[in-house]
């Protein structure tokens, strides 16, 4: 199921602005990789380039190579729509569909793949996904209410449920817990633990403890100055990055002595 990702020499542009430069990193299948780094260093941009969501912004483009299980992600024959069906994404800000009910939100992705779904199948998928996202108990009795009637944290968990309902092979999560309380956060972390047996997971986080708790590999991004492109400073096993990083700036960032 899961897929490995090989990134080499990736440059990410917004128009003429080079936002991220020269990223080379292998991401192992069935593992959790955490991206950390200061705000604006290009973590979200890099994450979005992994499922070709970067290019939906007008003028945005990438240079370099990303190979997913032997297939060139930016190759001429690769259909971005097919890519996104297999590589799910949870955004930094919760974005449930406001015009759909909670129920419809969860199966929105499945509806795209299979127009006709048995009612019982859909019900099961909704319950399973919502349970995994630790939201079932709160919404069980109001599945037909609009998705936008939930609190911010609930909306984010709804988005997580929506992303995992289609059982993607890779799950990209951009600060999925930044709007969540400790209980939901820990539920999401449990979920990540469960999912990594089957999926490849990449998570962006500003929470060092979280990176240490959930990930096997950690990658540290940094930018030398404002207006300069962000770079991947180093990556390695999470234990090593947190105990004995090669780079000084990594250690400074992790121990909170940044800037």
């Amino acid at each position, binding site marked *: 199921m899961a897929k490995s990702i090989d990134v080499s020499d990736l440059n990410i542009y917004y128009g003429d602005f080079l936002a991220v430069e020269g990223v080379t990193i292998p991401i192992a299948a069935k593992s959790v990789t955490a991206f950390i780094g200061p705000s604006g260093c290009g973590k979200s941009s890099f994450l979005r380039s992994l*499922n070709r*969501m970067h290019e*939906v912004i*007008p003028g945005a483009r990438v240079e370099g190579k990303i190979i997913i299980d032997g297939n060139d992600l930016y190759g001429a024959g690769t259909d971005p*729509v*097919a*890519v*996104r*069906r*297999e590589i*799910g*994404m949870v*955004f930094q*800000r919760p*974005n*449930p*569909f*406001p*015009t*759909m*009910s909670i129920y419809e939100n969860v199966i*929105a*992705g499945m509806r*795209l*793949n299979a127009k006709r779904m048995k009612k019982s199948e859909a019900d099961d998928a909704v319950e399973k996904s919502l349970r995994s996202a630790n939201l079932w108990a709160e919404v069980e009795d109001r599945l037909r209410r*609009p998705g*936008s*009637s939930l609190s911010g944290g609930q909306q984010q968990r709804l*988005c997580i449920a*929506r*992303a995992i309902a*289609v059982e993607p092979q890779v799950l990209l999560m951009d600060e999925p817990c930044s709007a969540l309380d400790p209980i939901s956060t820990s539920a999401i972390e449990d979920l990540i633990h469960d999912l990594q047996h089957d999926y490849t997971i990449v998570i962006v986080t500003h929470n060092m403890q979280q990176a240490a708790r959930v990930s096997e590999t950690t990658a540290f991004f940094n930018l030398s100055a404002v207006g300069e492109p962000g770079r991947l400073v180093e990556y390695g096993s999470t234990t090593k990055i947190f105990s004995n990083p090669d780079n000084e700036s990594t250690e400074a960032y992790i121990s909170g002595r940044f800037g």
Partner: protein
Amino acid sequence: MATRTRSEHPPVRRGDRIFSATALGAGILILLILAGVAIFLLVQGVPGITAGRGSLSGRDSFWAYVGPFAFGTVYASIIALVVAVPIAVGIALFISHYAPRRVALALGYIVDLLAAVPSVVFGVWGITVLSPALVPIMQWLEDNAGFLPFFEGPTLTSGRNMFTAGLVLAVMILPIITAICREVFLQTPRLHEEAALALGATRWEMIRMTVFPYGRSGIVSASMLGLGRALGETLAVALVLSGSAIYTFNTLAAENSGTIAANIALQFPEASGTAVNVLIATGLILFVITFAVNYTARKIVDRRSEFSGAN
């Protein structure tokens, strides 16, 4: 003083006060104007409703007189709407989500420009260009779809029938509907469009998942604005159509239902005495129809407002 308690009135800012006074004033003014129009229509119209045969072109009652025109009004407007809305939505979508920026900009200007064309121009264009051009199409419809009541025929050779009138109205209301739909479609939050795309939606699926549901109330409002314009349109219809006081669904034949507005415009110069009241009373009916249409539209929009994305 530092000991102010919460129960005291909070200070009202000057800007707030000016703004709320202006808004209130404008609101009252609109209501007054509306009430004035309604009172005028009622006072002048009621004698028309009770008028006798003499001022009713030989009809037994006012209702028998106004019926066919009310029917024609609604019929012509519905034809216009049925033709215009899908096209308008298509153009708006093309401008907002498909066309390259430059093309979109140019198209947007053209649409806005079309909205500014006076209706008499459309009427003249309908007579001189559109009706002859449409005759072959009408003939084809009569031959191939004649089993439908709308296309029964026989096709009028001048082409100046309900079919042409409906299409002229459609062209007239197209720009306003397009312009509003385009604005509404552009308002779809980027975040929601991206959510759909990230799930693996194609562009069309993304539009169906986010743009249409989000713009639903906007599309309805735009259509109602267009319908309002079509209902009240005088000149273009009066120029194209020689309507008579009959009920017919047939859009191709020489005999067509007239519209209230066109009938008023055509009859008013010659009318005197109670006949004037009768015409004003038909205006009152038009007022009621338009009001009912807008009210229904509001209801449609409100029914699913919870899901509108506005909250």
